[in-house]
C-alpha cells in the first residue's frame, strides 16, 4: 500500500458490528475511512451507536465482528493503553485528587519522560489552552469551561495522532459551548491531529466538522461534508435530523433525469429532485427547508406553487416563522428574514407558497411514519 492511500485511510472501520447481548446489534456494519488530520463527527440521536463506535476505537469496548485499522494496522487486539489515542470525556474525567499540572503530567509520567521535559511540556500545554496560572489548582476549583480546556490539553499533551471526543461540550452552557467550539477548531488546525468527535448537537457538528457521519439505529445514514449533508441529504432521516424541514407526503407520478413529479396529498402537483425516490406510483415524501419556501409575491415566484392558509407567525428575532396549513391540514413553516420585506398577513387569509425545483427533495418515506 502506498503512502498517500494510507493517509487517505488513516483510520478505517471495516464491517464493524457490535452487540452487547449477542442478539441485537447496536452497530450494524459500520464502514468509515478517515483521512489523516481530518475532523470527523459522528452525529446521531442518543442510542444510535455513535459512542459505541468511539469506544471501540479507543479500546474500551470489544469489536464483535469486523476490523478497525489505524495506519494500516489492525488495532482490535491492542490494549487501550498501547493505542496512543487521546480521549476527551463528556464529564472531563479530570482526576480530582491531582492538581491541573499533575493531571497534565500524568500521561508523560506513565511514559517515564525526564522530569525537566515533563515540566516544560506541561507549561507549554497550559499556555496552549491559556490557563498558564492554573497549574497548582485542583479541578474542583475550575469552571466548566476551564475544566474542558484542561481535559483537552491532557488528551493532547502526549501527542497522540488521533483524538476522540465524546460529547465534550455537552455539559456547558450555550455561550461557553460556542467559545469552546472555536477553541477546539483552533487547536485542531494548529496541531493537525485526526479528530473524531461524537455529538448529538447538529449545529455543533455542522460548524466544526470536515465530514459528518449521521447515525441512526446502528447504521450510518450518510457521511458527507456539512454543506452536502444539509443541501443534498440522501434520505428522509438525514433531511429531518439536520436542520429544519417541511415534510409533504405525496405520490410519485413519474421520474426522469433526476427529477420527480409528485402529486401531493392535497392534490397539487409539484416537481422536485429525486433523492432516494421510490418507483412511479409509490408513496413518497417531499422535503422543503423553511428558508427555501417563500410566500408568493412579485419578488418571489418559482416553478412550484401551492395554495395554503395562514395560521400564525412566530417572532424569533433575526427571522420570523410563518405557519401555514394546506387543504388537507398538513402544516408548513416558512422562515423569513426579519427585514422590511417581511409581510404581514391576517389569519385565515389564503396565500400561495412557492419554491424552486432544486429545493424540493423527494424521498422514500421513513419506515416509522
Amino acid at each position, binding site marked *: 500500500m502506498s503512502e498517500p492511500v494510507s493517509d487517505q485511510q488513516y483510520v478505517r472501520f471495516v464491517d464493524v458490528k457490535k452487540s452487547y447481548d449477542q442478539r441485537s446489534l447496536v452497530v450494524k456494519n459500520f464502514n468509515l475511512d478517515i483521512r489523516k488530520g481530518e475532523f470527523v463527527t459522528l452525529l446521531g440521536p442518543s442510542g444510535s451507536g455513535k459512542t459505541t463506535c468511539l469506544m471501540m476505537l479507543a479500546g*474500551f469496548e470489544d469489536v464483535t465482528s469486523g476490523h478497525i485499522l489505524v495506519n494500516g494496522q489492525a488495532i482490535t487486539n491492542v490494549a487501550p493503553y498501547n493505542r496512543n489515542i487521546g480521549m476527551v470525556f463528556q464529564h472531563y474525567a479530570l482526576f480530582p485528587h491531582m492538581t491541573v499540572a499533575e493531571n497534565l503530567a500524568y500521561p508523560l509520567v506513565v511514559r517515564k519522560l525526564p522530569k525537566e521535559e515533563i515540566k516544560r511540556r506541561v507549561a507549554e500545554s497550559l499556555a496552549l489552552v491559556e490557563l498558564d496560572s492554573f497549574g497548582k489548582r485542583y479541578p474542583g476549583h475550575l469552571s466548566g469551561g476551564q475544566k474542558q480546556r484542561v481535559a483537552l490539553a491532557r488528551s493532547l499533551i502526549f501527542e497522540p495522532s488521533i483524538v476522540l471526543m465524546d460529547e465534550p461540550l455537552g455539559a456547558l452552557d450555550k455561550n461557553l459551548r460556542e467559545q469552546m467550539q472555536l477553541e477546539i477548531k483552533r487547536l485542531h488546525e494548529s496541531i493537525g491531529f485526526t479528530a473524531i468527535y461524537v455529538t448529538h448537537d447538529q449545529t455543533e457538528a455542522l460548524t466544526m466538522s470536515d465530514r459528518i457521519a449521521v447515525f441512526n439505529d446502528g447504521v450510518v445514514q450518510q457521511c458527507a461534508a456539512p454543506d452536502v449533508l444539509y443541501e443534498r441529504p440522501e434520505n428522509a432521516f438525514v433531511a429531518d435530523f439536520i436542520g429544519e424541514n417541511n415534510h409533504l407526503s405525496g405520490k410519485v407520478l413519474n421520474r426522469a433525469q433526476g427529477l420527480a413529479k409528485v402529486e401531493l396529498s392535497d392534490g397539487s402537483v409539484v416537481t422536485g429532485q429525486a433523492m432516494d425516490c421510490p418507483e412511479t406510483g409509490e408513496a413518497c415524501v417531499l422535503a422543503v427547508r423553511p428558508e427555501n419556501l417563500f410566500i408568493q409575491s412579485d419578488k418571489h415566484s418559482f416553478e412550484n406553487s401551492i395554495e395554503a392558509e395562514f395560521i400564525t407567525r412566530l417572532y424569533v428575532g433575526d427571522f420570523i416563522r410563518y405557519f401555514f396549513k394546506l387543504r388537507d391540514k398538513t402544516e408548513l413553516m416558512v422562515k423569513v428574514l426579519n427585514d422590511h420585506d417581511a409581510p404581514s398577513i391576517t389569519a385565515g387569509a389564503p396565500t400561495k407558497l412557492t419554491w424552486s425545483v432544486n429545493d424540493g427533495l423527494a424521498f422514500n418515506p421513513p419506515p416509522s411514519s
Partner: protein
Amino acid sequence: MNNNSLSVEEILESKRLLNRKKRLLLLFTLPLLVFIFITFISPIATMLYRSVYHPTVSQLIPLSLAELKNWDEAGDALPPSAALQQFAIELQDLSKQRLSGKLAEEVNRLKPGSSSLIKSSARKLKKTTLEELQENGDSVLLSYSKKWHNIDLWRAVKRAGQPFTDSYYLTTFDLKRNPAGEIEQRDTQIYLKLYWKSLKIAIYITLLTALLAYPLAYYLATAPSKIANRLMVLVLLPFWTSLLVRTTSWIAILQTNGVLNSSLQSLGLIDEPFELLYTQAATIIAMTHILLPFMILPLYSVMKNIDPSYLRAALSLGARPIPAFIKIYLPMTVPGVSAGALLVFIISIGYYITPAIVGGTDGQMISNIIAFHMQSSNNWELAAALGSLLLALIIALYWIYDRLVGVNNIKLG
C-alpha cells in the same frame, strides 16, 4: 433615609422571625433530644460518675470515718481510741443489721485477708452490750485479734471510706496504692494486656474486612445493576438473621469435629483436627464475618459514585491497568475505606457477644471483662471505670484518625 440599609425595626423583626423558626424546629426535635438524653447521655454520665463515686463504706460507718478524719495515716500510730470505740459501736450495729459482711468485702478489696477478721469480730461484738462498748470499745476491739493493731488495716478502712476514689481507674491501668498510699504496679497485668489485645483483634478484623470487602464492593459497583442488586441482598442477608444464630453457627463450623475440620480431614489435607473454637482466631473469624457488611456498604456507595470514565481516561492516557488502579481509583475510594474502617474498628473494639460465645478465654475482649464485673463479681464501679476508659480510648483514636485522614474525608453514602 438610606433605602439600601435595613432599619433597626426591620433587623429586629427579621431576627424575631428567625428565632421563632429555630424554636419551632427545636420543638420538632424535642422528643428525639429527650430520648437521646434518657437512653444515651444520662447512662454515660452515670457510668462516668460511678467509676469514681463509691459511697458504700462512707454510708456504713459515717461516724467512725468522721473520727478518723483527723488521724494522720502517714504516721505509725494507731487511730485515736475515740475512733476505735466509734468503729466498734458501728460494727456492732452493722452486725445486728447483717451488713458487716458488706463492710468486710469492701475493706478486703484494699487489704486482702481482712474480711474474716472483720466478720469474726462483728460476730463477737454482737454478744457484748452497747454500754460496755461505749465505755471501752477500743480495748474490746483490739483484744479480739492482733490484726486490729495493724496500722495498714486502719489505713485501708479510712481509704475505703472516701466517697470519691481513683482506685478503680488505677486498677484499670493495673496499678494500686500500697499501704503508704503511693501508686505502684500490680504484680499481674490484666487490664492493660486486655486493652492491647482488644485493640489488636479490632485492627486484625478491620484489615481483614477491608481486604475482603474491597474487591467485592468493586465488583458490585461495576456489575450490571440486575446482578448487583441480587448480590446486595446477599450482603444484607446477615442483618436479617439473629446475631446469636450467626455466631452460634460458627461453633458448628469451627469445633474440633465441626464442618471445617471434618472436611479438611476427609480431603486428607490434615491428620489432626485444628483447635479453632474458643481461640482468638475464632473471635477474629466470626467477627470478620459479622462486620463485613459495615465495610462493604460504605465502600460500595463510594465506588458506585465514581465515574468509570476516570479509569478509562487513565488507560487512554497510557497507564497500565494496575498502576492506573492504584494511582487513580484507589485514592478516590479513600473516603469509603476510611468510613468502613472506622465503623468496623469502633464496633469491633467494644464487641461482646461473639467473643463471649466463640472466643474461649484466649479470645476474650475488654467488653467481656466489663460484663464479668457487672454480672459475676458485682464490681460495677470497676466495670464503669473500664467502660469509661474504653470510651476515652475510642475518642482518642478518633482524634488521631481525624488528624491523619480527616473526618471530612469520610463518606457513608
